[in-house]
């Protein structure tokens, strides 16, 4: 009945769970069901998003022009120097290339682009078609690498060869070939690599400043504002600090195995997770000076933002949110951040969460919260309506769902132009949520379902609603 009411496809029933219902046996990490309008992209997308911010590398997409056109300068990943990553290069395969093979074209394209742009390295992304026509991308890369004396790295990101997560792994494999090839001179014992932050709107810079204030040296950033030479010497760092664990875990594990570098998982979103990240990093170094500096940093930053946060909290108290992210790790932070703002999460899901992720999410959420893996627009729309959500947090693809249904929206994806990480990011996040949820325009949306009309099956909110103020 429930399935029919929510228009959930038979093949997806076990990818939806309501907290409170037993047993909890969430199916996830599987290929998207055919015909379901998944919000996921493909293997290529996974590789492209991870490597994209490396600003002094050439990123050449071996395939038809479309894959390159759709990913041209779409992200907010900033660079403090070269801007090569913001251009879009493709071998632009045509019918005759498909018939006769694309290796020759790839070779010539690589050579001419390397000559023109003088990159520090080149990444060559294999798209679907390359996997089918049988181009030996590795051989071409090897040849050009020898001729041009820069690393030329194949990225095996054929779209159909798994999910976006497999694309992360392909990207990690390519980066793994760079790590360990550079000089580690000048790297001290109090050093770390930032992994899984992509410098959206300058977030890596912010995090780097925090670490520097703690007395730590940042060796390399994978990959926000990333540089090839930094990546090559990253094995000299004492610690890998991994955010967005889905995308970087392969490389962190690889570096642990090869160089004995330990790693910790962190998140830089929200006061709780941001502070925990800094404290955990500080503790790792067993140095009272670092711990003292960290305590001061957290105290200063938190006290600075609290007055403004409280103002937003007052306005947002009792609102309900739906969170749908790429990786599940971000969803944890968002549920906590929203709670800081007095907002209850009533629907939460991700494109690529693992069983453990969903288990943790379930523990974190209130009774009745809907958990969903790899959802589609039909389901998502039904869920937010049923739960009377006031806000949807997601990416550009989710935005029109929110707006059409009369919900506020906050872009928490890589295309945003706003810092949402760190302490100042928390204030920005609160302002983003406030400026959307409390806009007067929603009053004009006809037939919009308000929370009081939502079905009563959700448990009482954790935070009691206060009287709504007219915004």
């Amino acid at each position: 009945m429930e399935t029919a009411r929510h228009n959930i496809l038979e093949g997806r029933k076990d990818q939806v769970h309501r907290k409170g219902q037993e047993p909890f046996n969430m199916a996830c990490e599987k290929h998207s069901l055919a015909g379901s309008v998944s919000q996921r992209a493909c293997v290529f997308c996974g590789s492209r998003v991870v490597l994209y911010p490396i600003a002094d590398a050439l990123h050449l997409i071996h395939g038809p022009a479309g894959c390159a056109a759709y990913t041209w300068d779409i992200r907010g990943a900033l660079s403090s120097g070269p801007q090569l990553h913001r251009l879009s290069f493709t071998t632009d395969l045509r019918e005759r290339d498909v018939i006769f093979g694309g290796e020759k074209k790839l070779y010539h394209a690589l050579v001419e682009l390397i000559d023109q742009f003088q990159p520090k390295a080149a990444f060559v992304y294999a798209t679907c078609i390359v996997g089918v026509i049988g181009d030996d991308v590795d051989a071409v890369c090897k040849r050009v690498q020898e001729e041009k004396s820069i690393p030329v790295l194949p990225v095996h990101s054929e779209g159909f060869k798994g999910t976006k997560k497999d694309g992360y792994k392909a990207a990690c494999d390519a980066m793994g070939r760079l790590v360990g090839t550079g000089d580690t001179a000048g790297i001290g014992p109090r050093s770390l690599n930032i992994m899984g932050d992509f410098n959206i709107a300058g977030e890596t810079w912010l995090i780097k400043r925090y670490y520097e204030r703690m007395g730590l040296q940042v060796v390399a950033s994978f990959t926000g504002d990333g540089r090839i030479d930094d990546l090559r010497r990253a094995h000299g760092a004492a610690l890998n600090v991994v955010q967005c664990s889905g995308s970087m875990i392969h490389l962190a594990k690889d570096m642990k195995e090869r160089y004995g570098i330990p790693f910790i998982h962190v998140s830089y979103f929200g006061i709780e997770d941001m502070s925990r990240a800094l404290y955990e990093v500080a503790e790792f170094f067993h140095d009272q000076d670092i711990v003292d500096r960290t305590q001061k940093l957290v105290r200063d930053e938190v006290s600075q933002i609290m007055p403004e946060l409280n103002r937003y909290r007052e306005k947002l108290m009792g609102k309900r949110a739906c969170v749908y992210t790429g990786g599940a790790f971000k969803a944890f932070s968002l549920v906590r951040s929203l709670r800081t703002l007095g907002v209850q999460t009533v629907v939460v899901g991700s494109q690529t969460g693992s069983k453990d992720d969903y288990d943790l999410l379930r523990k974190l959420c209130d009774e009745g919260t809907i958990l969903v893996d790899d959802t589609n627009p039909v389901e998502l729309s039904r869920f937010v309506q049923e739960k009377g959500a006031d806000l949807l947090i997601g990416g550009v693809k989710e935005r029109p769902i929110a707006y059409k249904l009369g919900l506020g929206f906050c872009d928490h994806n890589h295309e945003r132009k706003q810092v949402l990480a760190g302490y100042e990011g928390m204030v920005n996040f609160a302002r983003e949520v406030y400026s959307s949820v409390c806009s007067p325009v929603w009053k004009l949306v006809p037939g919009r379902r308000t929370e009081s009309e939502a079905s009563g099956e959700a448990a009482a909110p954790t935070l009691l609603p206060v009287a709504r103020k007219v915004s």
Partner: protein
Amino acid sequence: MGKSKVTAKPNPTSGECRHATRNPCRLCTPFGACMVFHGISGCVPFIHGSQGCATYIRRYLIGHYREPVDIACSNFAEPTTVFGGKQNLETGLINVAAQYVPEMIGICTTCLAETIGDDVPMFLHEITKQHPDLPRLVQVATPSYCGTHTDGFNQAVRSVVEALAQSGAKHHGVNLFSGMLSPADLRYLKEIMTDFGLAATVLPDYSDSFDGEVWGQYKKNIEHGTAIADIEKAGGARASIEFYSTASSKKSAGGYLLERFGTPYYGMPIPISVKDTDRFLSVVSQLSGRVPPDKYDGERGRLIDAYVDGHKYVFEKRAVVYGEECLVVSLASFLSEIGIVPALCASGGHSGRLRDALAEQIPEMMPDVTVLEDTDFWDIAEAAKAVRPDLIIGNSNGYKLKRELGIPLIRVGLPIHDRIGASRILHVGYRGAQQLYDRIVNALIEQQQEESSVGYTHI
């Protein structure tokens, strides 16, 4: 195309052979096909290939239209690629039918499905036999290495007509294959047809699905668009009107109907200039047997009055124009009419007919026009610097060039992903020309005003 087996093209400035494309000036074929399917009532677009194709195309369309766009996909996995996509196609179609309850599913292929040799027509034949309850299935072959989004669009229109238009029973309606225009354009064209008393089948008609109202309650967003019943009758229409400049009518929907049912065919450029709109309205007038209502005389008169008011600001200015080939030709025609030199006309399209189409429309200007076909934004930027432009007319992808040259960019066409209101941009007819003209003149005035140290408040 190069002489070797490798496809390469000469660099317009240096003349050397190019193998890589730098900042593409086109999208892929399934993109255009999805737009068409989204403009048919009760139809869900469906991509037979990898998940990413559907998601990227959705993402791009949502960025432009700011509307929900659902595109289903057969979501290939590795075994699908090895063993063929039939099973995924079948499961996918059944799931789409269950979740959307559509009247039709419009299936377009991808480079992947085409290259592994999936025989989609045969698959569909078998699937339909096995599942007679499935909605109507219409397919178009759109390998992305063949052509551009415009080609995919035109092929999809033709495939839909071929599949659905089975009857030649005569009626008084008119088919309008308007090509890749904005929702505002489609609304205006329908208004014109109504004003002339003509029942028009505009295919596709995504004016509401890509530019809808706020909902409040969930909708599947497949309710709007060209009615399938109207497409079925297309063969018996009084005539087909088709906007094209570089596409071949032999491959077009209108060309097909002419050949199959003898449906009279009128091909013409997208009507933007007064000259082209006059031509369009004269055909409409002839088909309807009515003189144009006074309203259009008024629009035309006011447009020319505005041309006069602003002529000094635009005369002999030089413009860079890029985008879909047909749009570039019609914009060039409009610019030449108001005294602006379309000094660089560029497109990522590779029909090979852009130069000829321009020469036909603006013969007197051609000596001063650089034409770039099958080009990319890197070459457009290089060529633009050489033609000393005063303004740029095209989609959002020219923004970096605008910044570099410090001249205005008038946003037209698709994609427009750095402004809101792309759906509301009117390009066609007297009213469209009026809006474009005002935007161009005001952008040039603003440039002059901003650059002046005086700060004039009366211009």
